[in-house]
Every structure is written in structure tokens, then in C-alpha cells.
């Protein structure tokens, strides 16, 4: 199970980073969300994978580690705030510059030469 869990975290990291390296704001937001899933799962896993337990006194025979859970709980909420802020930044940048490119301007030369390749990329 540990291997599967680690692979899931690795996939979330990879996909998150790849999207964060994209040129448009929306994929970057998606990438950040994926990356925070990965990070949250990783932080959570520092308490090890416990089955059929609870971090609740008297709730179960096995206790799962409550500390990483408390940290991740706030991390999830803060992560939402960060995503919301990033989305707002993206919208504001779109409103101010008219494009949704992260650099605030289209890279005119590359747009032209790549337009023909659009099919190939899909």
C-alpha cells in the first residue's frame, strides 16, 4: 500500500509541477491545486498509514497520529485561500492586460510559429 500511496504522491507532484510550468494562468492554478494535494498527502503520511483507526480517544483501538492531521487540516484551508488568491490575481491580470498569459503579454513570435502545430499537440 505504501508503494501505491507514494506513487500517487509522485504523480500529483509531477502533474502539478508540469502544469505550474505552463504559460497560461488557469493551468497554473490547476497545477498548484494538484501540487497542494500531493503536499498535503505527503505531510499526512509522515504519521504513517494507519487503517481502521481514529485520532479520537476511546473511538478506536488504534490511534492514528493526530499531529500531522491537525497540520494538514489547516494546510488544506490555507491552501484554499492561496488558490483563491491566485485565481483572483489571474483574473486581475486578465482584466489589466487583456491576456491570461502569466508573463502579462503574449509571446508574439512563438504564438505565430506554433499555431500550425496546435493539432499535433492535442
Amino acid at each position: 500500500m505504501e508503494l501505491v500511496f507514494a506513487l500517487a504522491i509522485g504523480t500529483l507532484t509531477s502533474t502539478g509541477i508540469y502544469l505550474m510550468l505552463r504559460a497560461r494562468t488557469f493551468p497554473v492554478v490547476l497545477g498548484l491545486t494538484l501540487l497542494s494535494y500531493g503536499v498535503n498527502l505527503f505531510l499526512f503520511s509522515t504519521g504513517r498509514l494507519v487503517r481502521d483507526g481514529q485520532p479520537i480517544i476511546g473511538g478506536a483501538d488504534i490511534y492514528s497520529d493526530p499531529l500531522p492531521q491537525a497540520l494538514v487540516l489547516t494546510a488544506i484551508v490555507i491552501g484554499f485561500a492561496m488558490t483563491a488568491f491566485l485565481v483572483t490575481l489571474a483574473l486581475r491580470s486578465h482584466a489589466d492586460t487583456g491576456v491570461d498569459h502569466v508573463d502579462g503579454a503574449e509571446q508574439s513570435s512563438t504564438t505565430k510559429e506554433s499555431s500550425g502545430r496546435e493539432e499535433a499537440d492535442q
Partner: protein
Amino acid sequence: MSLALVVMLPFMGAVIAPQFAQAGRTAIAIASSVPSLVALMTLFPYWERLAGGNAVIQHVEWLPQIGLSLSFRLDGLALLFALLILVIGILIILYARYYLKKHENVGKFYSLLLLFQGAMLGIVLSNNLLLMLVFWELTSVVSFLLISFWNHKQDARRGARMALAITGGGGLALMAGVLLIGQIVGSYELEVVLAAGDQIRAHALYPITLALILVGAFTKSAQFPFHFWLPHAMQAPTPVSAYLHSATMVKAGIFLMARLYPALAGTEQWFYMVSFTGMITLLIGAYVAMFKHDLKGLLAHSTVSHLGLITLLFGMGTKLAAVAAVFHVVNHATFKASLFMAAGIIDHETGTRDMRRINGLWRYMPHTATLAMVAAASMAGVPLLNGFISKEMFFAEALELNLPGIWAYLPPLVATLAGIFAVAYSARFIHDVFFNGQPKNLPVFPPHEPPRYMKIPVEILVFACLAVGMFPAFSVGPLLFIAASATLGGEVPDYTLAVAHGFNLPLLMSFAAFSGGLVMYSQRQRFFDFHERFKEIDEKAVFESVVTWVGNLSERVTNKLENGSLQRYALLLFLTAFTVTLWPLTELGFSIGSNELSPVDYPSALGALVLIGAAIGTVVMHRQRLTSLILLSVVGLLVAVAFATFSAPDLALTQLSVEVVTIILLVLSLFYLPAQTPVETTAFTRWRDVGIALAAGIGMTLVTLALLTRPFSSISEFFLENSKPGGGGTNVVNVILVDFRGFDTLGEITVLAIAALGIYSMMKYTKLQAPATDRLGNPWSKDPHPTMLMQISRPLLPLALMVSVFIFLRGHNLPGGGFIAGLITAVALISQYIASGVDWSEQRVKTPYQIVVALGVAIATLTGVGSYAFGYPFLTSWFTYASLPVIGKFELATAMIFDLGVYLTVVGATLLALTSLGKLSDPSTKVSASHNEGGV
């Protein structure tokens, strides 16, 4: 703190003196000389104590944490330099009164001059090396300002920049060296450092420390290969050249060597670095001086040469040589300052400094000529003048230097050769300027004697040359003795200051220098022709090109790294993070630990597979934004399932509700953003990014695996044990959040509040054009608020609110709490916005959400502060049990009030963020397409 006063006086003068600028040059000159006079009077009473061989140390703590103190030290060496600075300072002030023209900015000039005087006094009187560094840098800065005093001249600006670059760079090296000394010795106080000489010399860092300090000293004192800045500093007004660039500032490096002599000298490294640098500088300066047609150029190179001589003397390492070095500092200051002043007078009266034009001035200004000739004779080392005595000592020491084998001839030879050059250029200064025919097309003709008072400073200095030259023991003996004793750290060798020591080898060397120098001067045309053959290097051009090259290089590097593209920065960020973490991780090893892997069950494997697939799908479909968003929500839901599977019910609940809010938010933003992402990058870029992403992903997988398969011990035992008895709750996660780590939570909800307010303020005045149709060109639905949705959502609200109250109340003991309850409330309210529109909802929710946010943070904070009232630290919780009919026994805890604050902040922040986005559309589009009220 009278020593501190001595240092502060000129600084005060620098502020006050310019106020007298309006009253004329005489008034400001008098005002400017007051600090020097007062300082001299303050120092006078110390003579008795210093003559007894004691040092005066005055100490006030400033920043003891870094070893910086306001501590000042007056001993023989400091006194000697302080007297030079103060006495020559007064003379320069008087001289400058007549040198400066009426229309020039005398206020600025005198202010800077006094600033320099204070900084220089600070260097020589500091007992703390860090304090000295501050003054050291200050002299470099003021020197820069004074060289560029005539800042309309390009040469002056360039010369100033060069001087600042060289001396400032040296200052950095010196700082590093001083910090190393501090590391070795453990203190920056001079008395400690000087006493720790053996410790410093034995330390492994000694060579580098010495080299750094010497770079500082050599740059300041214009030693080869840093000497070239000094001749270019001659663009300064002549009083500045006389004061800073011959008598005092360039001696700061020499002073440093003398000051740290007991701590650093006496090793082979010292000997070779210092003496050979001095030797090369001595020769180069003397040689080049010979060929300079500019009067000040000649004097500048001669200064370089004499500084080399003093450095060489210090480098020799014998005590007698150190005495000679200190002595020559005084002698050089007197004759060179007077020569500069004379050169300034000649420049003033003839309008040029070119020795090919100014000839035969004897006829026009015999008084000045006499003074200049005496000073120049001292520079050449003519007997009965002070230059002669120290030069004899120098020759004697050069002979004493026992280098192995044939090298033993080197120092005396170099000394004699430099002596020959010195005689030749001094002869040129006298003969070319005052004799040798008639002046040729002088800009000012006929030249005449300067104002009476302009000559007085020169006269005083020339008188000093004569007095020291004829009665050395009487005039300068006692001062030299205590200065030498302070330099050497106590023991002064036997030496006699006498006009002549009988017929000996040094005298013979002097004789050789004289005859050789005069012959060389008489045959000067041949030497000039010889010198002409070599292309002269224009240091200024070389320096400028180096500066330009460095500037261009850094600009190229900056442009390469920083091209304004955030996309690129993100790439660099990930690459850096990857590189930085890779190294320590490889040391740890990615190996699988000792714990056995737990078995995989089919539902979990399926869930993981779907999660991985959905994540990859999000990337593959990312150009179709809505599709990839749907896939993303699948990932989020599966993350929540994962939390639930691995015994984290609170996390599962939080993730679930955050997921809903996040997806609504992203869908909302998609309304304004393009629906598709164009292809902009090349295949190479994409594969490069895939490579980076894969590398990071593989790394994370290995790290996670390595982590999960290792045994661990957690501090969580503490929380599990104390949750119930200490925090009064059985849900340990919630007790940690609101009690054990309540302060963290308070910080986190504050961040949440700030983010929400940031979103609100960023969106408040932003207007985005909402598209009139969807991306396929279809018009929006005419019914933005479908009746069914509206009807279902309305009864849902009280139900959802009830659930959130339930979740909130049970949070302390069972999964739930403020965060989750807040998110559930937020989702319930948002559904009303979606179903019934912003206007409808805002008519019913009158409280602005920013108030809710503020209220939440305030409640949480006040709960924390409340514990002060009972004499407990911030955020101490209290709880008891109460019982009510029907409900039974339940718990009351202050942590619950805190959780209420969390709840309100989460509700407020979430809704503030979403409604800010929902209200983005320009109102004008509302009429044509009223869909924007719900946003979605």
C-alpha cells in the same frame, strides 16, 4: 570621553561651518579651523601620560552583541597621526581660503574637508577595529566627493570613481580581514588584538587574514598594483591633493600596518608580501615621476614612490626599520604637503601646471621659489633637511636586510636606484620650473607672488623641514619615540637621531644617488626619448573599459536570468529547489526502510488508480479547461477518500468541503477566462518540462516510500495522553487545533482573513467583460435562476446550517469543529448565491463578509487575551461540564469560543472570496445578459 569629542568636533564643524559661507571665504576658513584648534587643546594635556609610555583608552559600549564599541585609544602612534591631521588640516584650511575662487562652493568644500578630518581622526583614534572600519569607509567616500569637487570636469568624475572603486574594494577586503581577526582573537578591541599577536600568527587563517588586511592597506596607500588611482585623484583641488592624497589619507594604509604591526608582523609572509610590494611601488613611482610633465603628476608619482618606501620599511620587519618608517611618515607629510601647496600656487599664478611651459619662475616669484626649492631638496634627500635623515635610516636598513645569497644586493640596489630617480625628479622640479629659460605662453602673464597669507602654510611646513633636518632629536625626538614605542608595542631599539653619522655606507649611497640623479637629469632628453618609445598605458581608459565590461557582463547575466517572464522564473525556482534538495537526499539514501509494506486491497488500489489517472488526465486535457477541471475535482474527491481510508475523518470532511468551494471558485473564474489554452511552446520546452516534472515526481515517490517504510517515534503520544485531561476533548485533532497549538491556528485564520481581504480589495474596482455567449457561440440561458434549483436550494439552507451547528458542537469530541462547520455553512450559503443570484442573497445577508472575517479573528484573539484576566498565559483554555435537561451532561470550554472565531473567519473568508469574484462583471453587461448574478 574627550577623545570621542576630538573625533566629533570636525563632524560638528562640517555642519556648522557652511553656515558661514555667506559671510565670505575668510569667515568660513576661521570657522573651519575652530574644531582643529579645540581638538589640539583637548589633546595637549595628555602629553604627560603618553610620554610616560601609557596609552589612554576610553570605552563606551555600543553594540556588544557584535563586538562594536565606541572605544577610543590615544597612544604615541595615534597622537603622531592626530597631530599631522590637525596641524596640516589648519594649514590647508588657511591655504584653501586663497586657493578657492570667490564664486566656488566654499561651503561644500570646507564641509567635506572637515568631514574628512573627522573620519581620519576616527581611524587613528579608534580602539575598536569595527569602529575604525566605519571611519575608514567614510574617508573613501569623502575622498570621492572631494576629488570630484569640480564635478563639471569629466576627468574629475572619472578619477573620483576610480579612487572610490579601488579604495572601496580594498575596504571590503579589510572588513573581511578584520572580521577574521575578530574570529581568531574573539574581540575587536585593539588592546586585546595587539596582545594576541602570537595567537594570530599561529592560526591557520593567518595567511588569508594578513592578505586581506594588506589589500585594504595597499589600496588605500596606493601600493602596486593598486597605485594607479592616486595620480588620477590629482583632478582634485590642490588643497585636497596636499591634505588627503599626500599627507593623511594615503597614510591610512601605512597607519594600519603600523597599528597592527605587533599583531601581524614578524613572519615570512609579512616580510615577502609587504617588502616586495613596497620595493616595486618605490621603483615604479620614482621612475614614472621622472617623466611626468604635469607638476602635480610628478608629485603624485613621487608620493606613490615614498609610500612604497615606507611600506618597504615596515616590511623589513626590523624594529629600527619600523622607527624609520614612522619617522618618514612625518617627513614626507611635511615636505610633500608644502610642495603640493607650492604647485598649487604656481598653477594659481600661471594658469598651467605643464613643466614644459612654466620655466624661469625664479624671476617672478622668488619667495615661493625658495620655499619650493627647500621642500624639493628635502624630497631629494639633501643633508640638513628632514628627508635626508629618514632616507639615511632607510639606506642603512636596506643594507642590514639579510636576504639569502645574491638577493642580499637587491634592497640596497633598489634603494639607491630609487634615490637616483628621486634626485632626478626633484632636480627637474627645481630646475625646470624656476630656471631653465623663460616661461612659454603662460595663460597668465606675468606671474607674480601669491597673497601673503597663502604662503604662510608653506612657510610653516618648510620651517618644519629645516627644524627636523637640523635638530632632529630636539624637534621631533620625543614624539617619534613614543610613536615608535606604540608601534612596536613597547620596546624601542637604540637609535640616534642625528644630522650625520659620520662617513659610512649609507652616506656613500646618498652620494651615489646624488651624483647619479644629477647626471640623469642633465641627460634627461635621452631618457625622455627612451621613455617615449613605450606606449603609455592610460589607466583611466583601462579602468573604464574594465568597469564597462563588468557592467555589461552583469547586465547580460541578469538579462539571461531575469527576462521578466514568470514562466521562466517558475522553471528556475523548481530547478533550484530540485537541485538544492537532491544533494542532502542522496546522502540520506532513497532506500526502502525496514518496515514491511502493508498489503494492498482492491478498493484502495482502484481508488489510487483512478486518482493517478485523473491527475494525468487533468494534464493531458489541460487545454480544454472545463474538462480538466472536472478531472481535477475527481482527484480532490479521491484525496478526501484517501484521508478517510487512512484514519483521518477530520481531514476527509475538510477536504470534501474545500473541494466543493474550490471547484465552484475555479468554474467561476473560467467564466471570465478563455475556455481553451493555446499551444505556445515548442515540443522541446514541453518535453523539458515533462522531464523536470517527472524527476520531481520520482523524487517525491522515493522520498515518500523511504519515509513510510521507516519506523518513527512521534511526539503525538503527549497529545493523545493529555487531550482529555488537559484539553477536555476526545477529538485530539481538534484539541490540538484549538488548544495545544491554538496560537498556530490563530496565525492561520489571520492569514486566511488577510487573503480574503486581499481578494476583496483586488477585485473591488476590477471590472471584467463577461462574454455575451458561451464558447460555442450559443446565447446564455434566458433563465439564469432555474425554478427547480431555487426551490430545492432554499429548504436546503436551514438543513445545512443545522448540520454545521451539529458538526461545530461535536467537534471537540468527534470529527468536526470550526473549520469544517465553517466550510459547510459557506457551501450552504454559496448554493443560495448560485441558485438565486447575488442580488437576492445580498438583500437577505446584510452583514458584509469582511465584518464577519474581522469578527472571527477578533473573537479568537479575545479568547486568547481573556486568559490574561485570570493570570494565565495567552490562549490558556478552561473547561467544565454542565448539564441541562433533555440534552444531559455536556462540556463547556473556552476553546469552543475560540473555535467560534475560527468558524466565523472561515465562513467570512470563503464567501468574501467567492462573492468578490461573482460580482466581477461590468454592470453594463447585466442588462444584456443577466446571467452573471449567479456567476455560473
